[in-house]
Structure formats: C-alpha cells, structure tokens
C-alpha cells in the first residue's frame, strides 16, 4: 500500500502528540510513586522504624474456645479442658538433636510423638512451631519453664483440648475432634486461617463435624512485641475472637446411657423419637467405642481392635445401617392398599402357608398357614401371604411411594455422619441400577420388607412416629444453639385417611396386647402406658427348596453372621403416643424374641424418666426383670446424671 508523504507526516504528528500525552501521564504516575515512597520512608519513617526496630511485631491468632455440647437437660456431653504442650521452633533451637536431647533430660518425651515431630519439622519452614509433646502434666510444664534459659526455642503453651465425659455413650452421635490433616485442608476451597495452627482440632465425624461451623467460632488476633530471640516482651493489641456456639441436643443423656447399656455388647441399634416434636431422645448404636481415644490420636493397636471387630463398633448403625425392614414394613404395604381403595380392613385372604406367583412359590413364615385372615389378624400374626396378595393388587410403585411419605428411602436431615438413604425400590430404579426388568417376585418380596427394600433404624422410628400421629414428624437432633431454639419437627398432617391410620394402630396394638400377637410377651400392663408395635425378622440368606423340604434350619444352629436380623418398632402410650422406638439386633434371630423386649424396656424407661416400677411388667416376668435391672444398674457407668427429671 502506497502512502503519501503528507499522510505519513500527519501520522507522525499525531504520534508525537499522543506520545507526549502518554509520556506525561507516565511521568505524573512516577511522580506519584516517588511521593508515596517519600511519605512512607521519610515522613512516616519514625513510626515504621519503631515498629520494625529491635522490637519486632508478631501477630498471632488466638484460637477460640470450641462450643460445648449439652443434652436436653443440660448435662455436658463435650467440653474443653486446658491442656499443656511443648512447642519448638527449628530456627531458634540450633542443633535439633542436641536440643531435643537436652529437653529429654528435663521431661519425658514419647518416642512416637518425637518421631512425628521430627518428620513435621523436616517438611515445614524453620520458623513454624512444632508440637513435640501434648497433654503434658503441669509439673513437666513448670520444669520446662524453670529451665527456659537452657532451652532456647522451646516454649510451653496452654491450649484447650476436647473431652467427652460420657465416653462411649455418645461416640456415634457426637463423633470426635482431631488435629487438622492435610487431607482436610485439601477438601476446603479457602481454609480458615485457624486451621493452619499446628494440631488445631476440628470435628472429624458426627455432630462435631457436621456442626463444625457453629462450634468452631472465630479467631481473635493478638499483636505482641518480641525481642531478637523471639521472646514475647509485651502484648500491644488484642482483638478477641468469638467463641464457638454451644449446642444443646435433643438427646436425654440418662436415657441414652440406659439404651446403650441395654443393648450391651450385641451388635444392635435403637432410636427413640418424641412423636410430638420429632426430637431424637436417644439414638444408640452398639457396641460403641471411646471417642476420647481419637482426640489424643488413637494407637495402632486400639484402632486395629476397633476395625477388626466383626460387630463393627465404629459404624453408626442407627443412621448409617441399611437393613431389610422385614415385617415392620407391612404397615406400608397395607396403607398403600387401603389408601388406594384396593383393600378393605375387614376383607379376608386365605393363607395356606404359601402363594404361587409366576410359577414360583412364596412361603409364609408359618408352614401350615394362617387360614382366613383380615388386616388386623394378618398384622397381629404377621401373616406374609396376606401382604403378598395386597402387593399384587397395588403394585410396587404405590408401595414405594407410600413408604417414602413415611420417611423410608429418604435421607433425613440429621447432623450425623454417613446418613443412609435406605432404599425404596421402583421399576425404574432396578432398570437404571441393575439393568434388569422388574419382576413380579420382586414386588412380592418387597411387600414384606425383604428383597431390595432397605431402611435404617432412624427411618423406621420416623415411620412409626408418623403412623402414631398421622403427621409429617421429622427428626430433630439439635434442640438449640446458644440458647436459640431450632425449629421443631412436629410437622403438618400427612393428609391420610384417619380411619385407615386408626385401623393400623389398632392392629399394632393387638400385635403386642392380644394373646395371639407376635409381641404379646413384651406387653406393658400399666393402664395409660400400653404399647403398640410390630416385630420383624429379616432374612439375610436364601432358604433353598431343599432346606425347606428338610425343615428350615434353626437360627441358633447357624453361624452368627447368617442368622436373621431381629427388628421391632413401637410407640406408646397407645391413647396419646409420646415415644416411637425402633430396635434392630443384627443377626439376633426373631424380632419378637430378640428385639421386642428391648423396645419395651426402653419405652418404659423413657415414659417413667428412670427405672420403671416392676408392676408395669406382666407378673410372671417380674423376677427376671428385677434381676436385669439390678445388673444394668451395676453396668451403667453414669446411672445418675443429675438434672434428668423428665417433667
């Protein structure tokens, strides 16, 4: 492209002009920088020099006190106690080995801790403080302080450490805290400055983890003058942080303690829910473990013992476990049919002991059959065939939908770890997950809570509370935070036909109180406290036709892990339901024999707010119960917790 001379000259003139403008701006900016430099370095030099001169300023975080946790009556469940530890800084101690050797002569150092500290020291910057000993006694701390001149770079520090006074009773609910790990930090997008404090404790599981934000609080800052060796000369400024919020749980520590003791060393779980408010009054999983072990850092041997125990003490079975609900599910099948108008309570079905469906024979638990049964009798005697029949009429979709309305297959919003969703299967679900078509046999299995159907003890308690009240009761574990009450879980009416619900409750009442009911052995005889319930025995193995022909093997003859799960759900008092209870004993055998007595004992304990009088029990049981109560009284570590009056 040819350009004229005039053109080029005009262009050059513009360029020169613009260059002058831009150059002027740049010069002005440089002038500004110079002015700022002289302001900082000349005008304010004295002030800054003061700050920086021999006294250097050190800002450090003041860790806030972690919020404490209380039960519904004010019993302390998690608290902070002062703990002393010894900190060293590599850049100040000189020769590491010699310094630690000197320190070792003053106090006893644990070789494991020491090795960990050495590793930490290698990885971090020289000015990073490293903890060489934790939970040091006051005497040792004094000895370090006295010898301070001989131990440069070694400082005793006081901090707060977490302790769980009730130990194993609340291991699964509260969880525990532990030092922040690199893994924890990676999980967070922008970690709180506090977490960078070495060995800072954060919640790892349970309430401690799920309510971490509320419990942690906000760090304060203190600004100190330190001399050339890093020793603090004086504090210049201090901005207090905000301590973490105190949390009050809905749990009654006394009842929790009882339930945990009653479950004993069985692999079992129990949930007690207040039907009126949704409050979880007790939520127990056995066997349990001592969370205090984890706070200090659990030893390999202890940890191994916990992980290798076949009863899985670390698992929080009440919310995490998903079990076939067995016959406790029958209320769902029945309600689905009743609400759809597919069945009437007084219609009867003939039970010959089995039902042929699509060429396969589905058995009732009673070989000879129950004969003609209506709704009430079928539930009372737990006839399976009746429910097979209902399920074939209603279909799986309606049954699962009804179960979901009752809180099965729903992940309840409770601040505990690894909450299970359970499973209410649908045709679509099976196609998606298993890539197979739903078959009619699946529906038959689901109708009695077997097959794909899965529920956690928490879900079963919610289901029972909803049956008892007809309201959408939702579980609540946190009662208040810093004295501010959390919303109640009472819920609105479910909008179901009250007549059907009444029939259901009546049938559940008969399960426990009718001479022919499966739970008759676990009745309560005190007027006004009578209990309604439903037993469940869920198979964990297939019974082959050959075995059935020979006679089904007795549970007690099977190895533990192949025995049936025992379940029981209940609510009481029948007239005005207060507590819904669900109990599951893993591989415990029959629901009515292994789980129902536990549910009754827990219910009575809850209703009476302490050990119930013996006359609540049928007279022939009283002797045995008395012995049991005395035995538990001896086992329970904190039988009297104070301030536990229910009224």
């Amino acid at each position, binding site marked *: *492209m040819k*350009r004229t001379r005039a*053109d*080029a000259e*005009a*262009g*050059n003139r*513009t*360029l*020169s002009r*613009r*260059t002058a*403008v*831009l*150059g002027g701006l*740049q*010069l002005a*900016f*440089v002038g*500004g*920088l*110079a002015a*700022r*430099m*002289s302001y*900082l*370095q*000349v005008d*304010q*030099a004295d*002030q*800054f*020099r003061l*700050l*920086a*001169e021999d006294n*250097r*300023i050190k*800002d*450090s*975080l003041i860790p806030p006190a972690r919020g404490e946790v209380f039960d519904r009556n004010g019993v302390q469940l998690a608290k902070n106690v002062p703990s002393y530890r010894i900190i060293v800084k590599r850049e100040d101690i000189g020769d590491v080995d010699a310094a630690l050797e000197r320190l070792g002569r003053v106090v006893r150092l644990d070789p494991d801790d020491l090795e960990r500290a050495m590793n930490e020291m290698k990885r971090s*910057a020289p*000015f990073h403080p490293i903890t060489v000993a934790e939970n040091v006694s006051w005497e040792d701390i004094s000895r370090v302080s006295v010898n301070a001149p001989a131990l440069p770079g070694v400082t005793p520090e006081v901090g707060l450490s977490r302790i769980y006074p009730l130990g194993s009773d609340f291991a699964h609910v509260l969880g525990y805290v532990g030092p922040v790990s690199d893994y924890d930090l990676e999980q967070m997008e*922008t970690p709180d*400055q506090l977490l960078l404090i070495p060995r800072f404790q954060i919640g790892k599981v349970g309430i401690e983890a799920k309510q971490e934000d509320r419990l942690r609080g906000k760090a304060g*800052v203190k*600004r100190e003058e330190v001399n050339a060796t890093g020793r603090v000369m004086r504090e210049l400024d201090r901005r207090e942080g905000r301590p973490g919020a105190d949390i009050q749980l809905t749990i009654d520590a006394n009842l929790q303690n009882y339930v945990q003791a009653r479950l004993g060393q069985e692999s079992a779980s129990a949930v007690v829910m207040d039907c009126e408010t949704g409050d979880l009054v007790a939520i127990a999983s056995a066997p349990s473990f001592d969370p205090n072990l984890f706070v200090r850092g659990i030893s390999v041997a202890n940890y191994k013992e916990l992980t290798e125990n076949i009863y899985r003490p670390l698992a929080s079975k009440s919310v995490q476990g998903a079990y076939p609900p067995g016959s406790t599910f029958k209320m769902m099948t029945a309600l689905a049919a009743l609400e759809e108008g597919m069945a009437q309570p007084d219609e009867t079905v003939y039970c010959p002991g089995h039902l042929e469906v699509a060429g396969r024979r589905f058995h009732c638990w009673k070989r000879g059959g129950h004969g003609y049964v209506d709704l009430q009798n079928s539930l009372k005697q737990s006839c399976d065939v009746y429910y097979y029949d209902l399920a074939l009429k209603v279909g799986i979709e309606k049954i699962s939908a009804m179960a979901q309305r009752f809180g099965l297959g729903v992940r309840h919003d409770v601040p505990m770890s690894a909450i299970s969703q359970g499973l209410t299967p649908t045709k679509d679900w099976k196609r998606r997950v298993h890539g197979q078509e739903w078959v009619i046999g699946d529906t038959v299995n689901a109708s009695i809570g077997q097959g794909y159907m899965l529920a956690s003890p928490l879900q079963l308690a919610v289901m029972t509370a909803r049956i008892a009240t007809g309201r959408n009761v939702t579980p609540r574990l946190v009662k208040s935070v810093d004295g501010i009450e959390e919303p109640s879980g009472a819920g609105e009416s479910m909008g179901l036909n009250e007549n059907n619900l009444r029939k259901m409750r009546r049938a559940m009442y008969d399960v426990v109180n009718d001479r022919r009911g499966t739970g008759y052995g676990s009745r309560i005889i005190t007027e006004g406290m009578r209990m309604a319930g439903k037993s469940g025995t869920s198979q964990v193995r297939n019974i082959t036709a050959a075995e059935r022909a020979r006679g089904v093997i007795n549970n007690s003859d099977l190895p533990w892990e192949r025995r049936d799960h025992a379940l029981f759900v209940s609510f009481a008092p029948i007239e005005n339901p207060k507590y819904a209870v669900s109990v599951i004993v893993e591989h415990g055998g029959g629901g009515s024999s292994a789980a129902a007595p536990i549910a009754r004992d827990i219910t009575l304990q809850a209703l009476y707010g302490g050990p119930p009088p013996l006359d609540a029990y049928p007279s022939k049981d009283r002797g045995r119960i008395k012995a049991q109560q005395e035995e538990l009284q001896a086992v329970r570590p904190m039988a009297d917790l104070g301030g536990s009056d229910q009224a």
Partner: protein
Amino acid sequence: MSYLEYTVKSVPTGFRKILYLNWPLTILLASVAGVGFLMLYSVAGGSYTPWAGPQMERFGVGLVLMVLVGLVPIWFWRSVSSVAYGVSVILLIAVELFGSIGMGAQRWIDLGFMRLQPSELMKVTLVMFLAAYYDWLPPAKKSRPFWVLIPVVIILIPTALVLGQPDLGTAILLLAAGGGLMFLAGVHWAYFAAVLAAGIGLIAAVFQSRGTPWQLIKDYQYRRIDTFLDPSSDPLGAGYHITQSKIALGSGGWTGRGFMQGTQSRLNFLPEKHTDFIFTTLAEEFGFVGGFSLLVLYTLIIFFCVVSAVNNRDRFSSLLILGLALNFFLFFSVNMSMVMGLAPVVGVPLPLVSYGGSAMLVLMLAFGFVQSAHIHRPR
C-alpha cells in the same frame, strides 16, 4: 511501506550492527539487573544460591537473546508479527488444556528446562501485532468503527483467555497495553472516553454483584480488594503482605539500614520476598535514596525508548517501541504501587529485579525488538 522503501544502504550490516545498538538503554538494563542481583544476594543472607547465581545466568542468556533478536532486521519481525500473535493465542489455549495447576490457576506450560508462561509472551506479541496493524492501516481509516473494532477483538481474545485462567492482573495489563497502543496510533479521543465511562460502570457493577448469584469475580478477588481498601481488617491473612511490606519500606528511612542489614524482609516476615516483594528489601536496606534511584533508572529506560521511538521515521518501529515501553512501565509501576499499598496485591513481579526466568527472558526478547528497531531505523 514495504521493506524496499527503507533506505537500506545507510543501515549498518553484519556484526558492525553491534556498534549501533542502543547502548545507553543496554547499560541501563544491565544496571537494573545488577540491582536485582544485589538484592537477591542479600535476601538469601549473603549467598549466590538459591537466587542470585541463577538470576545472573539468566540475565546473561537474556542479553545474548536481546542482541541476537536485535541483529535481525525489523522488517522481518514485522512480517512475522501476526504469526507470533497466533502462536501466543494457541499457547494460551494449550495452557488451559494441559497446563500445570499453580497457585489455583493454570498459567504455565512445563517445557522441561523452563516453565513457559504464555501470558508473558502474549504481552509482547500483542503489542507487536497491533503495531503491525496500524502500520498497515491507512491513517485516514484508523478511527472508523470497523477498523477500530478489529484491534479491539485482537486485544480481547487473549484478555479473555488470560481472565479465564484466572489471572486478573495480567488481563488488566493486556487491556492497558493494547488500549495504550491504540491511543498512540491516533484512534479518536471519543472511543477512549466511552470505554473509560463503561469501565467505571463495570467497576460499579462488580461491586453491586457481590454476593448475588451472578457475581462477576471470584471471592478471593473481592477479598483482595477488601484488604486493599482496609488492610487492618485481616492482618494475618491477605492484609499481611501489605502491612508487613509497608513496615519494611518505612523502616528503611532516608538512607536505609545498609546492605544486608535489613531485618524485616530477611526474617521471613515477608512471603515472596525474592519475587513480587523484592522492592521492600531494596527500600529497607538502601532507604528512600535506593528506592528512588531504582525509580529513576526505570524512568530513564522509558525515556530512552521514547527518544528512540520519536526519532524513528518507520511507523511500525516507533509504535512497537512505544508499546513495549508502555508495557514495561505498567510492569514496574503496578508492582511498586502494590508494594507501597497503592494497589491490591495482584502478583506482578518487578521487571529485571524479581527472581524468575520466564519473565526475564520475555522481557529481554522485548528489548531485542526495541534494539532491532533502533539499529534498522531509516536514516
């Protein structure tokens, strides 16, 4: 102008060209780099390792690179400018796809012997390409909307890519350098006035959008702005840098504590003391006198570039020199503003002084172009 129109005869040839280098500029560059070596030596506590030694080697390589680039005729560089721009854009895209994750953002490609930061390269090639564009465009058309739109797109493509990394600091530098070049080329005032108004509107929008679902920048960027406006709000977090840096600067006073006598920067009160915050060491050890001298050296570099550009009748050459000088100016002025607490901490190093290979080499490459333009100017 095609290269035939250069009065080739009077341009020096062969290695005689070395005598025609812009020597004052070269000496200034070496002096600034020398200041850098001293500071890196001091920060390491009087040791060539780990920073001062490698930095010297890199500057040596950089000098050779500058001379070699300078010996190549400027018309060659003009003819490859569009290719250079294209390659830079492709590298920016590549870094999105394969780049390492560093400091929460994808910014470099690992070449084995060095980490190439395409956004650094982009700052140079963008200026080059725009200079070539305005050299080619007849001056009468330069303010017509269509011909304004083209360079805007040329600027916005790399800016958007860099912003996506996300590296707000470099994105702003690219915008400023590109805009500055358009301004130098003589695009009508009205466009800049409009953009300025829109920019103010955008800043208002950024603040308005905070906390809403359509939030325009990331949380950590808001926090940097917050701590910039009030460093005491987070004295141990992001505000830490600024507060500590001001203390170090202020404690230097008029003449400083003396070489290797600084306490603040060497005692680990300052992070990144060998990179972005190296100026604090200079200011602490040599005081206002030292800091101001460095500022004067930088200003002289700009000054010699401007002189060279104004005396160059080749439009591409002068635009290129001015654009690269503007780049250089933005570099050191943003870093100094940041260190002195006048701008938020955006992670821009102090050119030629901060420790870092990629930045140093790209900078010397840019000055190679300046030298080439100077040697091959029409006479």
